[in-house]
């Protein structure tokens, strides 16, 4: 009698886990197909856009405020800001928000850009910690530095929003570099579609690349496996993941490292919320707001504006970052739980939010269950070595196929990595990921699930740009 329920439980869980495995991998595969279609379409329309620009007048732009939240970024801030001031864009301002740094970030800015006190009254439209001073550069009138009490990244961007003058703002991490035409490519979309409220470009890994004068001059995979693995992850996440969700109008994340937003809409949802996953949270609230108010809107990922960012180069840093991302995602999902399986929010809820709940949130738990089940099934003679190897091969080969698919999307359209050895290495990493790296990330995500209420960001080590 006691064997029957056990057998039933095993049987049920086998079917459930296997179906889950099939569903998740099918979703990833579908996303790659959708992404390919979207990228081809985008390539056509980009050509069209270039042709139209030749046709258009010189007034074809909207002014943009670039907001750079900075907390203890003394090592990189001057180079980042200098690179931003060199952007190819007719009218923009750079607002660096020093978020209570204690490492000399403000002093570095003062020294480099001859800052002078400005007393322009700030309109409080979204909440943030007190601003202590606002400075303007004597050399670059479009550079504003806001010195405020520490309140976190979301709080710093909110301060930047209040200080900003333009209707569109771009938030960018202090350790990131925008390609000179990235702002032009992303903000142009706001001119072509009034319903566009937010857009983000692709984030690429700076490690391994040569940086000169604040610009990436040579692109290569980083020599370290840990960093190179992140190149693969970012390629997959952005080119197949986000582009795929784009095609389904269900994009829930615009990376905090580089996003462009319509200011009035962000103000309408109360600005950024103070959480560790402020980027996803904001996009979810924008979706909610527009659905609830019946506002026609679009949130788009565009694959060609590029933002280069430093990836963690030590395992400890990487785990800390992934832990924070996972906690951020859980918090955003909890805060916006009204969107879970709620037809009121249309496809965004049923496709995008469901994916995050059932794949990203529950995925680690189910994957862990799968790993634990293997020895148990073997012990009870329910899984032979041959079967185990076959299932393992299926999972790994499917995963590799998805990874190579993502690399293909990149090489097919953007051809950033020119060396054959780099491409071959990315394909190889696509397989290697399943032996150790994935399990490490899984454990960290599980840890994050258990501690999701923690709010700390943790300190990130930075390398000065050009030292990759």
């Amino acid at each position, binding site marked *: 009698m006691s064997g029957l329920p056990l057998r039933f439980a095993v049987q049920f869980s086998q079917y459930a886990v296997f179906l889950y495995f099939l569903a998740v991998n099918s979703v990833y595969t579908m996303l790659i197909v959708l992404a390919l279609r979207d990228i081809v379409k985008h390539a056509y329309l980009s050509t069209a856009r270039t*042709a139209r620009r030749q046709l258009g007048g010189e007034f074809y732009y909207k002014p943009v405020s670039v907001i750079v939240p900075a907390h203890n970024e003394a090592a990189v801030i001057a180079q980042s800001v200098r690179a931003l001031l060199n952007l190819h864009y007719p009218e923009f301002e750079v607002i660096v928000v020093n978020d209570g740094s204690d490492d000399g970030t403000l002093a570095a800015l003062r020294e480099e850009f001859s800052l002078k006190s400005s007393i322009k009254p700030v309109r409080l439209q979204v909440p943030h910690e007190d601003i202590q001073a606002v400075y303007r550069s004597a050399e670059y009138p479009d550079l504003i530095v806001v010195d405020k009490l520490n309140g976190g990244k979301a709080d710093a961007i909110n301060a930047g929003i209040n200080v900003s003058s333009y209707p569109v703002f771009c938030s960018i991490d202090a350790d990131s570099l925008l390609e000179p035409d990235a702002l032009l490519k992303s903000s142009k979309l*706001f001119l072509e579609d009034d319903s566009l409220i937010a857009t983000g470009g692709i984030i690429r890994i700076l490690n391994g690349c040569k940086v000169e004068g604040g610009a990436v001059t040579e692109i290569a995979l980083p020599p370290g496996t840990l960093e190179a693995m992140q190149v693969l992850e970012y390629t997959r996440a952005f080119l197949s993941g986000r582009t795929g969700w784009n095609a389904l109008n269900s994009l829930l994340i615009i990376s905090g490292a580089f996003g462009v937003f319509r200011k009035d809409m962000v103000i309408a949802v109360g600005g950024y919320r103070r959480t560790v996953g402020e980027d996803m949270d904001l996009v979810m609230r924008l979706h909610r707001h527009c659905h609830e108010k019946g506002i026609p809107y679009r949130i788009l990922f565009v694959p060609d504006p590029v933002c280069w960012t430093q990836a963690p180069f030590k395992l400890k840093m990487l785990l800390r970052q992934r832990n924070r991302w996972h906690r951020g995602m859980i918090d955003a999902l909890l805060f916006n739980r009204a969107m879970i399986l709620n037809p009121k929010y249309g496809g965004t809820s049923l496709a995008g939010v469901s994916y995050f709940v059932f794949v990203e949130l529950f995925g680690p738990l189910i994957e862990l269950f799968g790993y634990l089940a293997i020895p148990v099934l073997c012990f009870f003679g329910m899984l032979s070595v041959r079967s185990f190897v076959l299932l393992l091969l299926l999972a790994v080969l499917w995963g590799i196929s998805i990874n190579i698919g993502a690399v293909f999307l990149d090489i097919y359209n953007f051809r950033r990595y020119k060396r054959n050895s780099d491409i071959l290495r990315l394909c190889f990493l696509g397989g290697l990921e399943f032996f150790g790296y994935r399990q490490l990330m899984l454990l960290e995500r599980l840890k994050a699930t258990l501690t999701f209420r923690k709010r700390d960001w943790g300190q990130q080590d930075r390398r000065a740009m050009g030292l990759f």
Partner: protein
Amino acid sequence: MPDLLTQSPDFYRYVSCGVLFLAALNTAEVFFLFYNKRKAGLSEKRRTELKRLASTAMITATAPEELLPKPSTDDDFSAYSEAIASVLDSFEGEIAAKAGRLVGQLGIAAYYRRLARHRTWYKRAAAIDILSSFRLPSNREFLRSALRRETSNEVKYRVIYGLSSLARDRTDILEMVAALSSLPYLTAKYTEDIFYNAIRALKDKDAAGEFGAFMREVMKDGSVPVLVKRDMLTACYDASCGEGRGILHDYYLNSPEEPEILIAALKALARIGDFSFIPAALKHPDWRVRMTALKNSDACCADLLPETRAMLRDSNYHVRLAAAMALRRSGIKGTAVLKEETASPDRFAAETAAYALTQEGR
């Protein structure tokens, strides 16, 4: 009860098939990846070479069509069209005429006209944009017929854009505006560009007066959306169309309830040195109109200092700031007012005045 999944022979048969399929797929993917990379590299090289060759031939040769190989692939056509559009953009006279002739001689227009009938909307859109970038009058009829048969709004917007650079008279603009009014409003910049291109095209033909006639014709036409009219006035402002202040006065006087039109008219009038509506606009209930008036008040009306000063206490943040800046630009008297206001019990007026004093005056 079905078998345990892991003990079912069928299951393993399927899994084995899946494994073999994926192994083959992965191998094929890697090979295709490198094949495609090589192909893309070669095609990029050819495009660059063709573009350079075409540009040089158009600028230096008397009969460039004899020097250039006939295009046969998508890349060839794309390279030639980019080179031609760029030459047309940068040159006039004989060189531009040669570039224009090449479009027909090399079959580029025919190729993109074919592509403009493709079943996929974005391919049609790209083809229309490329055809439009040549700004050739010979494409006008094709674009008009494309507009009539087109089903996708996305493409229609592009066709109208293309037509805007080929406008010959007010009938053409009216046709364009009718098409535009039948579509959902896209963006201000888009509509402005349409009119801007049309004004430029008419100016090139010494027919700028046609735009004025068109503006009069649509002024009271209820079927043309207010936003389209506003963008028309803004384009007129951007392109310095110089179309009589009389029309702009009429637009201002005929649209008291339309802040969008009032703002555009105020700006266009200010550009041609007409500030006659500024005093009235300072009292308008819409803050955007008041702010626009303030931005121009210092240029005309020194006697408006008391009104401007009162607006330091306006209910709107932007208006208060604009009032302070207007005073700052108003010379010694304005600066004196600001200095007095720094001691104002109204904290915001005091801070705004203090800020304005740190800014550059005129």
